[in-house]
């Protein structure tokens, strides 16, 4: 390890703090890059934003168009326009959605809680099941169970989510009528008082167990469908991560000194495999966001995935870029948190 802080004059910052600063810097750069990408994409679009915004009557008036252009900075050279775009973004101005006619930011704020609830439950579900299956497969390596789990997890990553959602909805709602046909809560029920905007938590806070149950009932199918891909992915990854540590000498030593197998797995194997398993969570989150775009429409889930779907179908560019921007920011932030967690768990990372 480097002799940090030995030079005397100035104590070097705590390695974790340095990791934090380094990652924060990278994150800011990435965000800038993302804004550049969306800017380039939106400027590529053929068409005249001024005429689109002013409408057919005022759009014929050259003076009005010029005024609109100068008001929105469109008469400036491109680098300046990028800065204008950036400052708009910083003020939360993502443009106005063509399909809803409201600012994209307002739309996003309205739709985010539903997706957040779905994503969190789904990632939790997928992590629990995926890690369980992966550990089981690794411990019973090369047995029939391992083979079966291999096919199951490959099946999970191979199934098209949008199709799985449809099949599950068809069976669960249409044929057997075990689950509601979509939405977050019964259409006639009054949504719980909004504190977190996550229905399950809000209902719990309100002490309304029936509403909590109803919210969970509505969540079950879409969350399970979204989890399918991640279960397969996490299971495969966990299996590899566990196999990587299972043959180490310290594991053998733990076995040799007579610790019960369960303790060895929990305290030595899983502990060592934990850092790489944390890393996978970032990918799991990306998988959920991708899946949300594809299945929220099927389950009439009022989230940003469904919003993005409708935006895509109607080619509503401000809305699509807004969602992209938001998703990228979430994804980067999640990965930032994971990187830092990784550093907390595994001290070797902090130095690198």
């Amino acid at each position: 390890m480097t002799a940090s802080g030995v030079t005397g004059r100035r104590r070097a910052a705590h390695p974790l703090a340095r990791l934090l600063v380094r990652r924060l810097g990278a994150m800011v750069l990435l965000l800038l890059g993302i804004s550049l990408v969306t800017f380039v994409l939106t400027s590529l679009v053929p068409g005249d934003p001024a005429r689109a915004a002013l409408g057919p009557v005022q759009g014929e008036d050259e003076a009005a168009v010029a005024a609109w252009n100068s008001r929105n900075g469109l008469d400036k050279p491109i680098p300046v326009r990028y800065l204008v775009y950036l400052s708009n973004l910083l003020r939360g101005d993502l443009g106005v959605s063509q399909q809803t006619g409201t600012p994209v930011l307002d739309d996003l704020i309205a739709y985010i809680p539903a997706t957040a609830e779905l994503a969190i439950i789904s990632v939790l579900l997928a992590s629990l099941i995926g890690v369980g299956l992966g550990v089981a497969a690794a411990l019973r390596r090369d047995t029939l169970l391992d083979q079966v789990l291999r096919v199951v997890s490959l099946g999970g990553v191979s199934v098209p989510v949008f199709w799985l959602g449809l099949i599950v909805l068809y069976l669960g709602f249409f044929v057997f009528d075990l689950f509601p046909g979509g939405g977050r809560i019964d259409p006639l029920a009054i949504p719980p008082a909004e504190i977190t905007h996550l229905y399950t938590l809000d209902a719990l806070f309100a002490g309304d167990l029936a509403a909590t149950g109803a919210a969970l009932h509505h969540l079950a199918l879409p969350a399970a469908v979204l989890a399918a891909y991640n279960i397969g992915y996490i299971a495969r990854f966990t299996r590899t991560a566990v196999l990587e540590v299972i043959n180490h000498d310290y594991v053998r030593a733990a076995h040799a000194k007579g610790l019960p197998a369960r303790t060895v797995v929990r305290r030595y194997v899983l502990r060592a495999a934990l850092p790489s398993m944390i890393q996978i969570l970032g990918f799991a989150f990306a998988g959920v966001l991708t899946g949300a775009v594809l299945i929220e429409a099927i389950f009439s889930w009022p989230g940003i995935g469904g919003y993005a779907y409708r935006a895509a179908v109607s080619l509503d560019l401000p809305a699509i870029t807004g969602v992209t921007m938001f998703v990228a920011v979430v994804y980067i932030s999640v990965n930032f948190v994971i990187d830092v967690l990784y550093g907390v768990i595994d001290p070797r990372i902090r130095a690198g």
Partner: protein
Amino acid sequence: MSTPPGTAPGTVPLRPFWRRRPPARWRGGGRLDGRTRALWRRPMAVISITVILVWLLAAALAPVLPGPGPLAQDAGRFEAPSGTHWFGTDELGRDVFSRVLYGARTSLPLAVMLVALSLVAGTVLGALAGYFRGWVDSVLMRLCDLLFAFPGIVLAMVVTAVLGPSVTNAMLALVIISWPWYARIVRGLVISIGDAEYVSARRLLGVSARRTLVEDVLPNIAGPVLVLATLDLGGAILLLSGLSFLGLGAQPPAAEWGLMVSSGTQYFQFWWVSTFPGLAIFSVVLAFNCLGDTLRDVFDPQTSFTRAPSAGAGGTAPDKTGGSAVTP
């Protein structure tokens, strides 16, 4: 075994010809040959290769096979699966079975093209980054980081929306999001191989950088990268059909699997309209993923951890003479 008479002491007795190991050139590509045979011994590989071949055949023979064709509307709407219409008919009275078969003609070539384009772009850029390092490397890798920051389908959605929805544009959009994966892996491989002694030796002998890159480095990364590409074909089909499902890929009335599933969402009670195209996607993606997984097992024992690694029996001794020839 007794030494046959007439052989000098200390030499290996010559076996009768039928017990000799055939010379290396008869044994095919040596290392690769053994691995290919190992592949055939795995039932999963055999099954998945069969499924893929069946789909390829279906794609090739779809126009020749008897059937009403993908666009013919000569049956009633929403007929349930029956002897005449194995998979039923859709909202316009088209035969779902024919459409599923024809769907293979869209999905498979497009997926191959998508993977090939990203492979080429990623390999070229990754090799440049890994070989020249320096600013080329940092710029390209930051670009990769940037593209990694977008969850695939969302960025692809923007790109297709900007370019205009069509299958080709969907594929191009997906190339933009998938080349960085290849670039990063190729870069890593090129760096590890570029540091190998035989490459430095060639460079010190005065061979140009470009020639070592093409003649020494690239052949050595071809195997792993091709395995990766196979692994990726399934994902490519999924992404392409996903974009079509969103209405950003194939446009009606094309027979494309994702589009067909999407049309089924409006006719919920007629389950066959979207079930069969979805099963088609599932089966072919699963086959590619199983094949990729087995390939990785066979070709990359480091990450597969199956037993019987055969412990590199023979031929792994490092080339010490080659190394010393380089040192001044």
